[in-house]
């Protein structure tokens, strides 16, 4: 049973921020509520005030910028990202990842901003969006900052958001020409045990850019820059050995945790397997788009 709370419906980000400041620890942002209400029903947490961000104008929706960046309002539900034509045409890996988050009911209601701000380690978007070098816009009354998504995650269920700050927008820059991104995950419970995102850019038969991010395995989703360096500038035809090495490095760097979703060893193994498959699928996707 839920304990009673007060619902606040601010008309602007500034007003929402002011409510958070005024009520301090007693208040929390409420978006889809798919995480928050569950935790409150369980009695794990309680807030006297929930601040609804869905009624703040302009916080939900997706649009493409003139430079090709995807701008996603924090209160945009997963289902919108799964089905929006500009996402599936320009950022197919994101649309596919979104279509496999949770189940359709959670995707209809749960938002991307809520997913990122909850910072549950077993989640998908935080890993994939990092290979796009996504940034997030954090706003409070009288100020705003934009930081790399990578820096939002501080630990399990912990972000760098200040008490009166809201996540308002996620900005995803387009990949360079001759690039593709792929996200693969594996799990046997509701949420993923392991998720690996890869983006590759090709030039003259070489890997001009390789980006790798691993999620769900350790406390926070992370870019794997040492592993990326193994693949950088390699001839595509001769990437097999480098790929295995990159897999080992990423597995070690992922800070795998033993939990209900599997042992650390098991997850490290899966990081290598999914990294190889994702990389090869990304190469095939670039080749495929050039044949068309």
């Amino acid at each position: 049973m839920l304990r009673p709370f007060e619902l606040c419906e601010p008309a602007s980000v500034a007003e929402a921020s002011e409510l958070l400041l005024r009520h301090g620890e007693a208040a929390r942002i409420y978006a889809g509520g798919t995480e928050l209400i569950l935790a409150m029903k369980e009695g794990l947490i309680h807030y006297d005030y929930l601040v609804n961000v869905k009624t703040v104008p302009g916080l939900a929706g997706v649009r493409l910028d003139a430079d090709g960046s995807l701008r996603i309002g924090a209160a945009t539900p997963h289902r919108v990202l799964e089905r929006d034509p500009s996402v599936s045409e320009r950022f197919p890996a994101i649309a596919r990842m979104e279509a496999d988050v949770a189940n359709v009911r959670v995707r209809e209601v749960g938002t991307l901003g809520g997913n990122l701000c909850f910072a549950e380690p077993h989640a998908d978007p935080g890993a994939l969006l990092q290979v796009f070098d996504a940034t997030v816009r954090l706003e409070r009354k009288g100020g705003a900052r934009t930081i790399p998504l990578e820096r939002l995650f501080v630990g399990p269920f912990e972000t760098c958001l200040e008490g009166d700050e809201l996540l308002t927008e996620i900005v995803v820059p387009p990949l360079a020409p001759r690039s593709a991104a792929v996200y693969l995950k594996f799990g046997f419970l509701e949420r993923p045990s392991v998720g690996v995102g890869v983006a590759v850019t090709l030039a003259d038969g070489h890997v001009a850019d390789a980006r790798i991010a691993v999620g769900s395995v350790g406390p926070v989703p992370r870019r794997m820059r040492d592993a990326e360096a193994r693949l950088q500038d390699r001839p595509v035809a001769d990437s097999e050995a480098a790929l295995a090495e990159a897999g080992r490095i990423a597995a070690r760097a992922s800070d795998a945790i033993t939990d209900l979703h599997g042992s650390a060893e098991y997850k490290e193994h899966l990081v290598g397997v999914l990294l190889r498959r994702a990389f090869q699928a990304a190469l095939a996707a670039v080749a495929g788009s050039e044949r068309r």
Partner: protein
Amino acid sequence: MNAIPMSVTVNGEAHALTVPPHETLIECLRDRLGLLGVKKSCDVQVCGACTVLVDDRPVSACTVLAFEARGKHVRTIEGLAHGDDLHPVQEAFVEHGALQCGFCTPGMIMATVALLAENPSPTADEVKHYMRGNICRCTGYKRIVEAILAASERLATGPRTTDGG
């Protein structure tokens, strides 16, 4: 605690209600409106027994708050049949024996109605993907998938041109 006045249409009928913010949609539908076809099982958005449609979108009534339905149309299993005249999805479930204990069935059927409104001719794989969050402990799913595919054909060719609502 603030009370929230709201108007909501449930199965075609308009209601003016006042709900506290912490009232869940399932409490509102079952306890206030007596719609006992809405089932609660897992209570954590995993099983789908509580699936109802809010403006045609499937949601977990166990966790969505009631006030979120303000100004919207809610449909439950009770809103599908016209008297003894079953909805084509209900008919398909009966004909294909797609239920045993029946506890998951209202949610299965509501999710199917949402799926077919969005994708009138799904493949078996699309059906399985969409229905992933609706769990049945009895049937083993085979007959459920068959019933959904049959319902899709029935809706495409049958006498009713709408989804029955």
